[in-house]
């Protein structure tokens, strides 16, 4: 243990108060983090009248009317929005994982002229986030007739995820020992065999991290659909949630229920994929 500290006579008492202080601060922050979420869930589980008369009481008994009404009223189109979000997310994630692992392999494991320039090109993308690029990107989509089309959303999301994820995967691919590549080549592997049969299976954790990050990004994205999609039939969930609040904002209980329902998939996914998300983010930021 901490040998230096054990020389002090009152070590245990000090230690106790130190821990007490640590935990009180951390618990206070936990409460602050939870306040907006808890208020939302309380609102979602009350009727409109209850929310007016006693806004901060516990929702006992919980009222499921608003939740059920959102899930069963076709006019609120929760399910079509969920489906649009899912389609965009699956396509974007597949695209990002495939395209980025191909490019990252070449950058990590192959030598060719112009490699430096090609790689610099992608690092440039890190300085040009979508929030800034959205207007110029909109022109290009319009020229290609991809406005009001989910493919427009998918392509733009994929294009703006390339830089970061190529960096992450390149880092992982570079870490795989060169001896393995040499051995494979001596045994008659082509570069493609090495990539497909040896590197990709070894890089599964990295691919999972990239996939998890991309899923979150795509699922949460509002800006690209806001600009690209016009017809309400094609709204993904975040855009739909924003519009729902605009339309039914007077009924806070109903809106709370909608927002809570649209947050639920992310929270569940996060609890299952936390390790992948965290490892992807730290690899991207600390090494990138």
């Amino acid at each position, binding site marked *: 243990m901490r040998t230096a500290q054990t020389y002090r006579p009152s070590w245990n008492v000090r230690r106790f108060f130190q821990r007490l202080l640590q935990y009180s601060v951390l618990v206070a*922050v936990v409460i602050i983090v939870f306040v*907006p979420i808890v208020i939302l869930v309380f609102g979602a589980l009350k009727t409109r009248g209850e929310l007016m008369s006693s806004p901060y009481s516990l929702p006992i008994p919980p009222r499921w009317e608003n939740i059920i009404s959102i899930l069963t009223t076709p006019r609120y189109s929760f399910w079509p929005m969920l489906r649009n979000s899912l389609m965009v997310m699956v396509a974007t994630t597949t695209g990002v994982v495939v395209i980025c692992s191909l*490019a990252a*392999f070449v950058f990590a494991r192959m030598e060719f002229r112009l490699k430096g320039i090609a790689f610099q*090109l992608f690092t440039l993308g890190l300085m040009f986030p979508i929030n*800034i690029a959205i207007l110029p990107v909109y022109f290009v989509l319009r020229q290609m007739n991809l406005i009001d089309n989910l493919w427009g959303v998918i392509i733009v999301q994929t294009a703006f995820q390339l830089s970061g994820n190529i960096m992450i995967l390149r880092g992982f691919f570079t870490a*795989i020992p060169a001896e393995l590549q040499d051995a494979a080549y001596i045994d008659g592997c082509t570069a493609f065999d090495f990539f497909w049969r040896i590197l990709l299976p070894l890089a599964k954790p990295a691919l999972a991290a990239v996939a998890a990050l991309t899923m979150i990004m795509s699922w949460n994205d509002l800006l690209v659909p806001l600009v690209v999609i016009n017809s309400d039939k094609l709204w993904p969930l975040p855009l739909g949630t924003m519009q729902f609040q605009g339309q039914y904002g007077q009924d806070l209980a109903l809106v709370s229920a909608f927002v809570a329902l649209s947050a639920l998939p992310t929270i569940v996914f996060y*609890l299952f994929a936390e390790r992948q998300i965290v490892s992807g*983010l*730290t690899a991207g930021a600390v090494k990138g």
Partner: protein
Amino acid sequence: MQSLPAIPNILKLKPGTGMPRRFQDNLMIFLFLLPAIVLFLLFVVYPIFQSIYYSMFNWKGFGPAVDFVGLNNFKNILSDRVFMIALRNGFLIIGLSLFVQLPLSLMLAVLVGRDLPGRVFFRTIFFLPYVLSEVIAALMWLFILNPDPDRGFINAVIVLFGGTPQAWLGNTNLVLISIFAALTWKYFGYHMLLFMTGLQNIPSEIEEAGRVDGANAFQNFFFITLPLLASTIRTSVYISVLGSLQQFILVWIMSKGGPVNASETMATYMYRFGFVRFQLGYGSAVAIYMFLLCLIFSLIYLHFTRKPDYLSGLEG
């Protein structure tokens, strides 16, 4: 890496197709890079150049751009009071992020430390807001910031302690701080995670040695831990600056940049001109200003990270 897989399929490989090895490799490099390069050039690089072109026109977005105005858009932006407010707000958010949000995240990361029982629990909770979408975060904060104490929780707490309820998002002096509170709520967990990872990479023996040599906790932190965290702090600062400059969704949902432009950011300003008023030439010029600002900060960041750093071996 875990256990290496055996390499079982090698013997079953098809014999070479007769193409020279070098040619095969080049073909593969080309095909592997093709999708990434095409997408990237078409949807990231090409738009930059196209918007440089459009920024020199007075263009409403219909038909070809014919009304050439040279650099007038760029001049007009700089003389627009609202853009200056947006610029000032951008730097205010940067300042608040660097001097409030990052120290707070660092403090929490140090508090959780390396071996506190329950550290993974705290990390999971603190990181949750980062994973939620900006729409959901913005709406949650919109609800608790409601000026009516019977609807907005924060005012209810203030009334409970005998204070006066505030119109958080309706008061020109409070709106930016209120939005910053929501931003901090959403993003502190991310910076804390970066700092936790950075701390993890510092061998505890070094701090141990400091303690043995008689350094107290503060000296240990400021003269040993903090310098060793330098690269993580640089990364965190850079991400924070770039994020602050382009804040859009939270602001747009919580205040639409108002009241009377008090919470305008460059991104909301660009959106207003580009997509609400359809002054696409003018909007493009705003986009280019934002791009230049990001470029400048990126070059500064690169300048500092490229400096030879004798500690870099320790930072992983």
